[in-house]
């Protein structure tokens, strides 16, 4: 159909569908892009069509459905508008010049340059009268933006493309510019993503706010900010349930004297991230762009502001990519290195930004980018589900004696499936209430009180805690709670190792911060079997981490390296830089002032570099730190399944599941396994089993399965008759009969089973016969009867059918 439609478009417009787009005449290209408007094309005598064209249909479809918006987004690129060349203003406005510069030119250069331009402007008296105040305001605001470390941004940069830290600093500059007094400003980690060189200016901006008569309340982990604060409040002592107390309060010096304050101890230098006495050896980097063993090289990178640089990443070590904001770190690592590795190693679709080539790929087996994107969009996704921990926990709960007695499988403990979850909120724990004229609100489910499960499911407890309680436990608590189960312990230990010990396991994914999401991903990767020769990429993994947690995170990264992997980290945190084996420092500034590799080598080389902006800060950090040789261990292997299984089975010792204990009662009971009342007559099943057992000369059937009752010829091999009993409205009876002895229409006539439609008072419909013969197998014909009433199975015809189908000659059968 699509071909017919396209041919109609091409035929009526006079071009050939085989002609490449670039070779089409302008009018035809325009037609492909913008369609035929209201003109209707005759496709054939039964179909007319209007061709919308690519651009309008993409625009229209994107407006219609968010799913398409996302899908189409992958194949679309933003390009500057051809009319204004991306300047956003019309020709008249673009023609106006101030001292020879247009507004478009001024907005497209780094704002530090724009600020310098306006500062250098000298005005005549008349000009001053006209523009003096405006110019002063422009200069002041640009200076404020520059002071908070955003000098590399251009004024025309769109707000959504700013990072969280950048937007926060833009707002901060705006607030300082507003000149308000008596205001309480609350800032959450304003130094995230800020290079140490910009930190001082950022701090100065905060002090300016204070000096205007305001109060700045900052949640922060950054050492320099802590040192310069007027007053510190240290909360702790631990995280999650172990926190929540004020440990110290006072000036930085007072807090330093508090031995119980971990923050104070870090400030005082008592606790610190030690610098390794000996770093891992790295042979000299390749020269002249030649491939070299042990190195992964990007040659001729020129994406965004990168200046045709050759970047060499040593393999098997911890490499830190540093440099001021906007110097090109993300462009190099996330936009060239990662997509290229993913493209070559995993067949990903996206390719990296412009570069000449990449060398050393053959030495790498895989790449894992541990970014700060959310782990999921819905509240159904949480750390416990994302790390695969919940599958193990649900399995554990299904192995508990009480669960076994009740016949609960792992699915019973899922909040995504019917059965065990609270149906009032469908396992969400919350319900959406639509409010007229007001935004919809989420309220806790009254039925389950936010626990997500129904009361029967919550009855099953392991060491006094139900599955709902597990979702509320922190990773640290759970580690203690489940310490007997090696595979569960392994995943929880990795979560604790990456500093997530405080995190509730069931915390909905949308409520995790970027840093938390990143560490959940890291924990998941760490819990997997180590592969070696994998490149791990992390963008600022210390975001939101306390110094003590940074220490833990570094240990985890070092363990990955010890297992033969390569870890490449983009980072501003000096604690990470000083323990890295290798540093690639970009700069020297941001935006057009960056894009070069300023220094590369072990941290000591960077510290000694005169050109590096990072160097002086790193030098100071190295001088402050003590050196010791830590003993890192390679990342541990996940425990064997057999050990885990043994621990689970020990739980269930001597406990039989209900179908194992009394299969007959289970299959003939008043409810299906999902708790719905069984509607078909139990006598139908009993009679069928009696008939089949008698035909086979058996005493009874095998009732010890959750779903099926089976009969085997001579009591072994593959089944020859079985009944599926877990459905509410029918019991499905099946027999494997010798080929060709039954014929569909004759069997229907003989059994005289009414169709569902012909049975009154049953809310089950269908005009199909209730007996079907499937002849697809080479070895047997499969007879299926959808049974309901006992009297139908007791009939003479049914008895004869069963006896004939199960006659003594064995039927060759193959496994299903």
């Amino acid at each position, binding site marked *: *159909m699509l071909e017919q439609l396209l041919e109609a478009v091409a035929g009526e417009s006079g071009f050939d569908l085989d002609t490449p787009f670039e070779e089409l005449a302008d009018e035809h290209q325009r037609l492909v892009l913008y369609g035929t408007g209201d003109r209707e094309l005759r496709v054939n005598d039964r*179909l007319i069509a209007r061709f*919308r064209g690519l651009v309008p249909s993409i625009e229209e479809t994107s407006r219609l459905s968010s799913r*398409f918006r996302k899908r189409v987004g992958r194949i679309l690129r933003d390009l500057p508008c051809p009319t204004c060349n991306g300047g956003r203003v019309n020709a008249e406005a673009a023609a106006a010049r101030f001292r020879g510069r247009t507004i478009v030119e001024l907005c497209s250069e780094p704002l530090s340059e724009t600020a310098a331009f306006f500062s250098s402007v000298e005005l005549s008296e008349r000009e001053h009268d006209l523009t003096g105040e405006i110019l002063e305001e422009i200069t002041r605001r640009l200076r404020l933006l520059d002071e908070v470390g955003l000098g590399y941004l251009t004024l025309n940069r769109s707000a959504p493309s700013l990072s969280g830290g950048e937007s926060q600093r833009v707002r901060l500059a705006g607030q300082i510019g507003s000149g308000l007094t008596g205001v309480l400003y609350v800032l959450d980690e304003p130094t995230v993503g800020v290079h140490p060189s910009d930190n001082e200016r950022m701090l100065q901006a905060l002090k300016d706010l204070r000096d205007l008569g305001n109060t700045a309340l900052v949640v922060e982990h950054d050492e320099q900010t802590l040192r310069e604060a007027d007053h510190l409040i240290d909360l702790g002592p631990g995280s999650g349930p172990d926190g929540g107390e004020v440990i110290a309060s006072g000036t930085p010096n007072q807090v330093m004297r508090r031995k119980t304050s971990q923050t104070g101890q870090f400030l005082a230098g008592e606790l610190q991230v030690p610098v390794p006495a000996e770093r891992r050896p790295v042979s000299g980097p390749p020269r002249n762009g030649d491939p070299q063993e042990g190195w992964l090289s990007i040659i001729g990178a020129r994406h965004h502001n990168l200046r045709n640089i050759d970047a060499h990443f040593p393999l098997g070590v911890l490499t830190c990519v540093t440099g001021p904001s906007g110097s090109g770190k993300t462009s190099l690592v996330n936009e060239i290195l990662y997509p290229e590795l993913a493209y070559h190693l995993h067949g990903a679709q996206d390719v990296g930004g412009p570069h000449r080539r990449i060398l050393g790929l053959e030495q790498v087996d895989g790449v894992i980018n541990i970014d700060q994107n959310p782990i999921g969009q819905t509240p159904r996704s949480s750390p416990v589900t994302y790390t695969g921990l919940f599958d193990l926990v649900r399995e554990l709960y299904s192995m508990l004696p009480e669960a076994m007695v009740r016949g609960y499988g792992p699915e019973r403990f899922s909040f995504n499936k019917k059965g065990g979850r609270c149906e009032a909120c469908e396992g969400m724990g919350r319900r959406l209430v639509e409010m007229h004229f007001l935004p919809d609100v989420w309220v806790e489910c009254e039925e389950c009180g936010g626990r997500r499960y129904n009361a029967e499911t919550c009855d099953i407890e392991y060491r006094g805690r139900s599955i709902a309680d597990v979702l509320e436990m922190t990773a640290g608590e759970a580690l203690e709670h489940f310490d007997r189960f090696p595979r569960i312990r392994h995943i929880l230990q990795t979560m604790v190792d990456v500093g997530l010990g405080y995190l509730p396991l069931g915390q909905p994914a949308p409520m995790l911060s970027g840093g938390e999401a990143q560490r959940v991903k890291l924990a998941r990767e760490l819990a997997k079997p180590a592969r070696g020769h994998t490149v791990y990429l992390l963008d600022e993994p210390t975001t939101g981490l306390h110094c003590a947690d940074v220490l833990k995170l570094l240990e985890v990264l070092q363990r990955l390296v010890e297992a033969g992997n390569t870890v490449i980290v983009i980072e501003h945190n000096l604690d990470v830089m000083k323990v890295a084996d290798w540093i690639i420092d970009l700069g020297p500034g941001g935006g057009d002032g960056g894009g070069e590799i300023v220094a590369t080598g072990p941290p000591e080389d960077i510290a000694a570099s005169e050109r590096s902006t990072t160097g002086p800060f790193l030098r100071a950090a190295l001088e402050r730190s003590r050196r010791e040789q830590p003993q890192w261990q390679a990342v541990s292997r996940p425990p064997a399944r057999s050990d885990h299984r043994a621990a689970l089975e020990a739980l269930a010792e001597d406990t039989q599941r209900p179908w194992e204990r009394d299969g007959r009662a289970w299959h003939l009971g008043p409810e299906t396994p999902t708790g719905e009342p069984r509607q078909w007559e139990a006598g139908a099943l009993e009679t069928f089993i009696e008939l089949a057992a008698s035909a086979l000369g058996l005493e009874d059937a095998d009732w010890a399965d959750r779903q099926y009752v089976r009969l085997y010829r001579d009591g072994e091999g593959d089944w020859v008759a079985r009944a599926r009993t877990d459905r509410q409205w029918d019991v499905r009876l099946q027999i494997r009969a010798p080929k060709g002895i039954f014929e569909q229409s004759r069997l229907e006539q003989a059994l005289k089973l009414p169709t569902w439609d012909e049975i009154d008072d049953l809310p089950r419909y269908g005009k*199909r016969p209730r007996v079907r013969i499937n002849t697809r197998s080479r070895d047997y014909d499969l007879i299926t009867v959808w049974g309901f009433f006992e009297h139908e199975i007791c009939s003479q015809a049914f008895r004869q059918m069963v006896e004939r189908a199960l006659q003594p000659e064995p039927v060759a059968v193959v496994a299903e």
Partner: protein
Amino acid sequence: MSGREYEFPPAALFEPIAICPYRERSVRVDGCLGDWSESEILPALGELAGGEQYATLRSAWNEHGLFLAVEVEKQEPIVTNRQTPSAGDAIELFIDTRGARSGHRATQFCYHLVILPTGPGSGGQEPVIWREPIRRSLQRSPEPDFDAIRVAAGLGDDCYAMELAFEPDSLHGYEPAEGLRIGFAAVIHDIQRGRQYWGTAPDFPYERDPSTWSLLEHGPPDP
């Protein structure tokens, strides 16, 4: 026949207008498709939506009304679900008797009809039809005159068929005439094979947006 899956929906590239041919004699609505001709089969617009193509649609009109037929290949028993039609075998029709295609909100001329091939009718063997409200409508259309809509289902070994006849004014604003264009889309639900679309596409908000439905033009009477 199995349809292709597309990255971008080709259905979005075109505004198809299918010709609903004129027929002199009205269709006998009895569930048997013997009195339909090949020329009344609607173009296979479902292929533009992707997915498996297991149903064929037919349409025709005359002064006595609009006739539709849907033939669905099916070997398994029919299962219907009145509460959630999409969880069983069902047919959904979307009809805009004024076929404007300009607005994104339904008007008083827009209908969403659901038909089950079997159901709780007399003895559970008769097809069932009812109207579903359309969300975010500008105006709610008047209740269809179900006495003026005839429905029949026929069950074969490998398929089932549904026939429908809409008399003039059975749906608000429907007056058959040559050249009349009505908005039309159909979604066929099959419990085993999923959905087949005609005149719209999955992911389009077709349940509420009549601009995502195709058009059916009443063709001229044969000379």
